[in-house]
């Protein structure tokens, strides 16, 4: 049988945090603020646990397996230990340490960003292969229309009041569409939060 203790803790904490938003009470605020700080601290600890798991369980495990990819894991483990050592020795705020990290991370992430740009350009070319329906065609046409509208090619229309007003009206359409999607997302988020609050969704053991 499942213990109700974790459920009681979740519901009580959830209700206190939620009431803190709606009921202007200093007593609730005094309870809510440290609870939110604990959540942030626990999230940081979870991040540390996850990194230790990634390095010492996943990559360390791969090192023991035969295969060409084990060398990538060796690089990850060695670089992690060097970065950890440098961080502990120099402290994370040290400019030398920051430069070492930045000079490695920024070029790598920039490279990935460049790959992403090419990937997305190629994907836009094969868009109609993935979405062979009227929604896909609408999406494709909309992308082309708004690329042209935002490219500055039609800047001459500023001199023509009728066209200027028409294009300004067109520019509002993406915002309206996004608002519709965000509305659905907001309702879905509300439903998810409430299911956890009433103990229907339990993404935890206990």
């Amino acid at each position: 049988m499942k213990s109700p203790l974790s459920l009681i803790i979740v519901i009580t904490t959830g209700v206190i945090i939620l009431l803190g938003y709606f009921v202007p009470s200093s007593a609730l605020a005094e309870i809510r603020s440290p609870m939110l700080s604990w959540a942030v601290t626990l999230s940081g600890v979870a991040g540390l646990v996850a990194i230790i798991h990634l390095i010492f369980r996943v990559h360390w495990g791969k090192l023991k397996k035969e295969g060409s990819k084990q060398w990538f894991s060796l690089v990850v483990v060695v670089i992690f230990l060097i970065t950890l050592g440098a961080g502990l020795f120099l402290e994370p705020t040290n400019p030398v340490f920051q430069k070492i990290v930045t000079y490695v991370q920024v070029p790598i992430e920039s490279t990935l960003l460049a790959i992403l740009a090419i990937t997305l350009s190629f994907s836009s070319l094969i868009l109609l292969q993935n979405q062979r329906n009227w929604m896909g065609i609408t999406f494709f046409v909309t992308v082309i229309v708004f690329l042209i509208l935002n490219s500055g090619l039609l800047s001459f229309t500023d001199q023509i009041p009728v066209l200027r007003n028409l294009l300004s009206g067109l520019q509002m359409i993406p915002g309206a569409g996004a608002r519709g999607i965000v509305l659905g997302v907001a309702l879905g988020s509300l439903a998810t939060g409430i299911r956890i609050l009433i103990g229907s969704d339990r993404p935890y053991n206990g």
Partner: protein
Amino acid sequence: MSSVDQVIGFSIVVFFVVLVFVFSSKSIRTRFPVTFRKIEPINRLKKAIGVAVEDGSRLHVSLGSAQLVDPSNTSALIGLNTLQRVGQLTSTSDLPPICTTGSGSLLLLSQDTLKRISKETNTQAFYDPNHATMAGATPFSYAIGTTEAIQNCEVSGNILLGNFGTEAGLLSDSIGKSGISIAGSDSITAQSIFYATTPDTLIGEEVFALPAYLAVSPKHQASLRVEDVFRMIVAGAIILGAILTAVGVL
């Protein structure tokens, strides 16, 4: 937040909770059975689950890189629900699903979910905490780590549900090479990238409807109905507001 906003917000939450309990009651469910509209990506996901069980292959669920304390984590919680249901449905297969995340807190929850599934389905022998991993600490490293996990574990289907940014482009490129792929996010950026790059994309509230379609529990189906009620109320309010603004009342 003004006092009027607080009252409205609190009333919405209370009304929502009450309606969820009303719609999940057995009498309402039997008198007014749930009818779902067809969502093709979800139908294909159900087929992918069946195929994974039949040919003994593995499914992969990725939960994005939002932190649990971020407001944008709710789609990742839906991902966890989906992971749980996929794990239950594929428990007769020798290969339980694998899960990747870009956040430490979601890693702990996904490991917990896989452990719970193994207990519920009496398949502890197949449980391995390494089936859930944090693929990377930054969005791009998470995308690269997830790509590697997909290739190494030879998955037959991918489910991407969570908060993603532009790294969704890299992810959808890699999942496109490994069987069926379903993608959904609360982020507008990720939704548009997924729509352009993946055949089966969940848009807007479809992401949040997934647990109800996979029949996780009656409360999921009830909350989906309540969402519909609230959507109609909000749409009515928007139309009314527009009319009142047009005639100069507001």
